[in-house]
């Protein structure tokens, strides 16, 4: 089969602009081959090159005394956690593949992020996921599609994570119309390693052999990176061949074989084949090593006969790695990969000429400076629209809904309702380290081999981000840190997944820029580095762009097992305190959305100094052993937070907010930030008050835990009460009922 001629149409089909093609011509000094055009197309796609976002990403704080591998340096950042141990973690999107094929799209998203972690030499220990779908309520075709996507994505994550044996211990799921047709699937993986186990993705040592290990290359996932860098259209279904097919069993073998190989002294460099497959891994390792790499396509293990060099180079078949082996140690690879019954092949060598050279037998089909592909891609500074912050909603236009009916409605809203239906499908206990099961503020995981306790949370309220992207991003960072504090943890690092619409549209680019600046500010305030992450642009369906969704995942450590804290009330008689002050910030709230159908108003303010003082005060009393439960107020405000704390151990609560001139719906459901509901043994209440008084943070006793069947709340002259078991039932059945009828 002969290659097509390079025409303007073919160039456009490869997503390269005329200017970018000019750049290709000047780099090569000649017309590219068909294969080279494909290689430039994927390497210069947004997914691989971050050409539209890189100038913005430079704003992130990425350094610090605990940073062992910085963002952007390797496949994932690495952070010191003491005693010679470190963690590698990262979040990555698989949005577009999941939109056209939810099961495989989500499954391979999980597989890809796991490879990023063990490529670093780390043993993966747990997963999280951040998911967004259109509304799943109702009988419309769109709702049915959204339910199908939701079910498929969850099953895909379960399939991959459960089979490979990694617990999915936390996450978040939101439902909003803006994601109809363009769901978000962001997968996070964390791994553990000793400092001396950090592996590098550099092609080092001229003459070292280059090995291909893992699954055979097939035609699946052809040019997936380029597909992911386009808007989704009605025709996107035709891109289904661009979705990869995952095999978690193969990846489990690959994971064990690679860790066994890395434990020997035979490896000079290692890199997974993710986006842009063989192309990306060869030119990136060469670029990092300051070397060249030469491979022969004919030596690559292949699933199908008759694949062209173009197909082999651009395939995104899963479960494959590139390993640069120290010369003379080839037998080690052979021994280990034969033990695990995995394909392997020596496909080339490291050269000294800086070129990525691909042969097809005797023919050279690609001969490009490796650095030009990996690091010299185009960079754009897009135009950002001007933005005016919205005003707070005019409360006179918001009718006062009865809290007694509003609270159950909020608890039944799919974004707030229990996600048990989701995490019950995930094995969240394998590797026997999950100390706090899904459903609390943060997941807590004990890493046995390192004797360390880790906590992790992932958050992003995209309604806030839609209405004010900068504030929304600041809140996402603060909420993650607050969730960690509620579990007794101190944050150590952040990975982010920036999900936005087409950056060529100025309002979208403004959202991206404001969110990056908000995240940067938040990370600086909390003193945590961004260790890496992922950018997913072009998240648009024919109905328009998604709400901007800069997902934040934060990892923390807990010094002592006695500090592990959960959100559920523990015992009748315990006193309930609220740390933080309640304002009158109904804007962007789920109350406005779920009860009044309004997505509007300014999101709550975020004052980092106040927020940090509250986290420190909370951690102080947790460490003194005074706190029995801690739960932050987020979507649905105080009302939802207190109800959720009642559910865990089926306890009641008697709450009195005291005199107030605020409307009851504002008191119960507004989403003022920096508020935490804690419970404390009655006998410890005065000690707690004394401790908190010294910190200067606002707090007050708002009631007590009871063994009664109801939750009762007084605010001003109004009293309300609900049966805890009926609220719990509403909270638990909402999603199963929608999904299973």
């Amino acid at each position, binding site marked *: 089969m002969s290659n097509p001629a390079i025409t303007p149409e073919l160039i456009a089909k490869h997503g390269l602009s005329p200017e970018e093609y000019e750049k290709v011509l000047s780099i090569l000094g000649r017309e590219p081959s068909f294969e080279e055009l494909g290689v430039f197309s994927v390497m210069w796609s947004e997914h691989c090159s971050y050409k539209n976002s890189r100038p913005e990403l430079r704003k992130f704080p990425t350094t610090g005394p605990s940073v062992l591998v910085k963002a952007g340096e390797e496949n994932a950042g690495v952070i010191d956690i003491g005693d010679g141990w470190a963690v590698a973690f990262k979040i990555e999107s698989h949005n577009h593949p999941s939109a056209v094929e939810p099961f495989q799209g989500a499954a391979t998203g999980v597989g890809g992020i796991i490879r990023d972690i063990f490529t670093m030499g780390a043993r993966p220990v747990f997963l999280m996921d951040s998911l967004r779908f259109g509304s799943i309520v109702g009988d419309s075709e769109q709702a049915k599609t959204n339910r199908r996507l939701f079910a498929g994505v969850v099953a895909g994550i379960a399939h991959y994570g459960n*089979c490979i044996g990694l617990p999915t211990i936390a996450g978040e799921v939101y439902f909003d119309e803006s994601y109809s047709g363009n769901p978000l699937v962001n997968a996070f993986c964390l791994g553990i390693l000793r400092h001396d186990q950090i592996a590098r993705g550099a092609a080092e040592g001229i003459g070292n052999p280059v090995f291909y290990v893992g699954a055979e290359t097939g035609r699946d996932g052809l040019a997936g990176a380029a597909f992911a860098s386009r808007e989704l259209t009605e025709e996107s279904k035709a891109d289904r061949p661009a979705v990869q097919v995952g095999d*978690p*069993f193969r990846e*489990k073998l690959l994971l064990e074989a690679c860790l066994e190989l890395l434990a020997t002294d035979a490896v000079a460099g290692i890199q997974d084949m993710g986006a842009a497959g063989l192309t990306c891994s060869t030119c990136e390792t060469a670029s990092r090593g300051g070397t060249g790499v030469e491979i022969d396509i004919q030596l690559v293990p292949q699933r199908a006969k008759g694949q062209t060099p173009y197909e082999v180079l651009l395939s995104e078949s899963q479960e494959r790695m590139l390993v640069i082996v120290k010369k003379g140690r080839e037998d080690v690879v052979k021994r280990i990969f034969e*033990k695990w019954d995995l394909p392997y092949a020596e496909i080339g060598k490291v050269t000294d000429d800086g070129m990525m050279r691909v042969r097809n037998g005797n023919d050279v089909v690609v001969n490009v400076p490796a650095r030009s592909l990996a690091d010299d891609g185009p960079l754009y500074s897009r135009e950002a629209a001007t933005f005016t912050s919205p005003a707070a909603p005019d409360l006179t236009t918001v009718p006062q809904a009865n809290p007694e009916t509003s609270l159950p409605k909020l608890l039944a809203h799919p974004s707030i309702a229990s996600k048990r239906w989701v995490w019950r*499908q995930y094995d969240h*206990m394998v590797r*026997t380290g999950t100390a706090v099961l899904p459903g609390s503020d943060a997941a807590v995981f*004990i890493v046995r081999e390192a004797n360390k306790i880790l906590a992790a949370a992932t958050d992003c309220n995209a309604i806030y981000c839609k209405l004010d992207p900068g504030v929304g991003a600041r809140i996402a960072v603060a909420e993650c840190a607050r969730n960690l504090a509620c579990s007794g943890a101190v944050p150590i690092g952040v990975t982010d997944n920036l999900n936005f619409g087409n950056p060529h549209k100025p309002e979208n680019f403004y959202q991206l820029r404001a969110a990056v600046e908000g995240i940067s500010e938040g990370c600086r305030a909390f003193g945590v580095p961004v260790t890496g992450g992922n950018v997913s642009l072009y998240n648009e369906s024919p109905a328009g762009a998604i709400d901007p969704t800069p997902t934040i995942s934060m990892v923390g450590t807990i010094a002592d097992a006695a500090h592990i804290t959960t959100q559920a009330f523990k015992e009748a008689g315990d006193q309930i305190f609220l740390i933080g002050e309640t304002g009158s910030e109904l804007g962007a709230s789920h109350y406005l959305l779920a009860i009044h159908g309004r997505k509007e108003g300014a999101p709550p303010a975020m004052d980092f100094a106040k927020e940090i003082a509250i986290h420190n005060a909370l951690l102080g009393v947790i460490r003194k052993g005074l706190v029995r439960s801690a739960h932050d107020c987020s979507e649905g405000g105080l009302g939802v937070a207190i109800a959720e704390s009642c559910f865990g151990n089926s306890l009641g609560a008697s709450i009195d907010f005291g005199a107030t001139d605020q409307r009851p719906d504002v008191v119960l459901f507004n989403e003022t930030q920096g508020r935490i509901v804690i419970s404390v043994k009655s006998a410890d209440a005065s000690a707690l008050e004394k401790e908190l008084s010294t910190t200067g943070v606002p707090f007050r006793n708002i009631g007590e835990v009871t063994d009664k069947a109801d939750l009762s709340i007084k605010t001003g002259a109004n009293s309300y009460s609900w049966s805890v078991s009926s609220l719990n039932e509403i909270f638990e059945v909402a999603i199963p009922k929608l999904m299973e009828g």
Partner: protein
Amino acid sequence: MKVAVIQFPGSNCDTDCQAALLSFPGVQAETVWHKETSLAGYDAVVLPGGFSYGDYLRCGSIARFSPIMGAVRAAADAGVLVLGICNGFQILCEAGLLPGTLMRNNGLLFRCEHLHLRVENTDTPFTSVLHQGQVLDIPIAHGEGNYFAEPETLKALQANNQILVRYCDASGNVTAEANPNGSLKNIAGICSHGRNVFGLMPHPERVCDQMLGGVDGRGIFQSMIEAVTKAKA
């Protein structure tokens, strides 16, 4: 006591089982690769959970042909204790070391959660330290745990007291609501006619540490240790 934890390709609870066993004083636990052919010197064998061979074809159906299975069968025939957990239970059924089969959960979805088991027979090397009717809190994590057997097989299991644990509610009532997967008679685990092979879907190794949600799994391992110790004495 020296225990072999078999590692099939795709096993993923192997190190969890090993760690749980090692938390008992005097227990040695080693992983044994499935390509080995001997289990000489081991006092007990554990087939851990996971997705051996990716669950391709049918859960456990390929693992039963692994080289090590000859040695597992010989050990079982010689009276050595063999414990199969989750995928290990599926493999034991596929290998014919236990009767019946494990089908897809009746709800079709994978289920991972804590639930309750009632101990039905304490006169076995796996349950001797437990008491009759005791309710254990042990989690499950499976997509294919729906136990099925032909009526005659079921009758024989009952007649010979081979049903060791059944799904129940927190008070020990064996009810349809407490059955997570559609298993016949709420069966969660059965032993062989000779009592020395035990397979169960729930994961006792996940509840051997108070920090990780309980210690109700310890009784099964403790029973095994006592049985081996007694046999050696």
